[in-house]
């Protein structure tokens, strides 16, 4: 190869590498803008609110005096609602995804369901609130309760759980399915012994991403009639005597973190805005904690699985 030729090749490579670099820099820039904006927002809130965050803040009910007011009812409410949401949405969503992915015939009906599920993920949350008000509150008489709120949010995140679970199932290579079938496994054995364990980490991540969305939802909870000022806790789920657990809390009135925030922000007294910032900080902390758990669990379940 002549030296002239080599020079030309290098110029050519240079040109192409430059385009490559331009994109890399552009991408980095975009990411920085997005992350910095987010960090800025969070930081501002933390700076505003951190002074109010103390043990008392977590153990006090709301009060007319800003510095005495706390988020006890709100975080307990949020936690209990999340439990209901998770218990309702995860098994339902995973089961639906398994059916759609592994059992349903690929026909027009399946396509219709698929389009519907995807679209449901984009329906404004207030619409779910209205649906829940009509269905759970008026039709089933579940009241303006933790149960109603949990089920409402479960409906809201069901599409997310279904879609992420389907993707997790689809990611399992076909040769593992065939290996199981070739040994005489039934479809259910194949799913239960292989598909579910191998995709467990991803399914869990999807569920937690869904719950992270639910934890911040305000509109549908207000629609079904959550209280904004509440100075008592629901019944404890744990009992001293047999059977040690109780489900009375499901029927209790409640409030949740975002509503508490909303309530404080809308007061004229600026002192309450500090409370709102503090509650927001706690809420973000809760979300981060859930995502952290998701990442850890995914690591835990995937470190032994590769293909």
């Amino acid at each position, binding site marked *: 190869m002549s030296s002239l030729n080599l020079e030309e090749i290098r110029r050519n490579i240079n040109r192409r590498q430059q385009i490559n670099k331009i994109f890399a820099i552009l991408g980095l820039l975009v990411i920085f803008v997005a992350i910095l904006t987010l960090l800025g927002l969070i930081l501002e809130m933390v700076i505003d609110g951190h002074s109010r965050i103390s043990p008392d803040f977590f153990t006090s009910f709301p009060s007319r005096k800003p510095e005495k007011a706390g988020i006890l009812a709100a975080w307990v409410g949020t936690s209990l609602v999340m439990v209901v949401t998770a218990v309702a949405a995860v098994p339902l969503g995973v089961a639906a995804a398994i059916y759609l992915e592994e059992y349903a015939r690929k026909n027009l009906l399946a396509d219709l369901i698929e389009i519907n599920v995807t679209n449901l993920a984009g329906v404004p949350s207030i619409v779910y609130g209205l649906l829940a008000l009509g269905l759970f509150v008026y039709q089933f008489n579940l009241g303006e309760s933790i149960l109603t709120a949990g089920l409402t949010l479960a409906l809201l995140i069901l599409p997310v759980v279904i879609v992420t679970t389907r993707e997790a199932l689809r990611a399992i290579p076909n040769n593992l*399915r*065939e*290996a*199981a*079938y*070739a*040994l005489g*496994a039934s479809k259910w054995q194949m799913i239960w012994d292989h598909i579910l364990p191998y995709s467990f980490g991803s399914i869990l991540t999807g569920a937690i991403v869904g719950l992270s969305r639910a934890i911040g939802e305000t509109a549908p909870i207000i629609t079904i009639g959550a209280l904004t000022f509440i100075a008592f806790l629901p019944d404890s789920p744990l009992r001293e005597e047999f059977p040690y657990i109780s489900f009375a809390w499901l029927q209790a009135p409640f409030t949740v973190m975002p509503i508490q925030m909303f309530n404080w922000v809308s007061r004229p007294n600026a002192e309450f805005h500090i409370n709102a910032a503090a509650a927001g900080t706690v809420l973000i902390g809760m979300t981060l904690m859930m995502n952290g758990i998701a990442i850890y669990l995914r690591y835990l379940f995937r470190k032994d699985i590769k293909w």
Partner: protein
Amino acid sequence: MAEELSDGVIFKPKAEVKNLNFYYGSVQALKNINLTVPEKQVTALIGPSGCGKTTLLRCFNRMHDLYPGNRYEGQILLERINILAPKVDPIEVRMRISMVFQKPNPFPKSIYENVAYGLRVRGENKRSLLDGKVEEALRGAALWNEVKDRLNDLALNLSGGQQQRLCIARALVVDPEIVLFDEPTSALDPIATASIEELMSDLKDKVTILIVTHSMQQAARFSDYTAFMYLGELLEFNKTETMFAKPSHKMTEDYISGRTG
């Protein structure tokens, strides 16, 4: 019951393919296949890429049932039962006929659980019985000595050749009547290939083997019978020595001597 080939070779048939046509949707991949698989012998399926070897092999364990649109016509008789009949549950067929795939595909589980799975599927959970069967299968697959101290390790940490032998152990643990191999060494290096070939020659006293291979040498080295396929048809079937010495079809001759393929 015995079968006689054109030049007087006599063997005991294990399975009989009769007028088999197979369709992927509207595409016909197998055309009127007739083949008798001899019992406790190695039968090799050879032929150029895309001629339908894998398709034919996967008819034997009804693997095609897993995907919509696939259609069989004709019969495969296994002890007088037509295993392609719709009323025969594919699970029943797969419990009698095991398969080893082209690419090693161990489950992301422990070595022990990989081998034990075929038994667990059948509802066998007694530890003492599983232990014995797993050891027997691993010995049968010439893997026991390498893994006996780390049965609880992940199967995916084994080398490619070891993984394939694990897949063979997994296929053997259920005492199958036939084991299907689809180019089991094509993803392996020469040394691993040699050990798998040796293993397969050892197996043929115990079980009927049907193996797809693209390597003429492999077919010649250890198969007893060879079937040559071309464009979805089975052109020739004979004792391996006979076929390699004096193929009766021009196509077979060209393929064996490397002029096509």
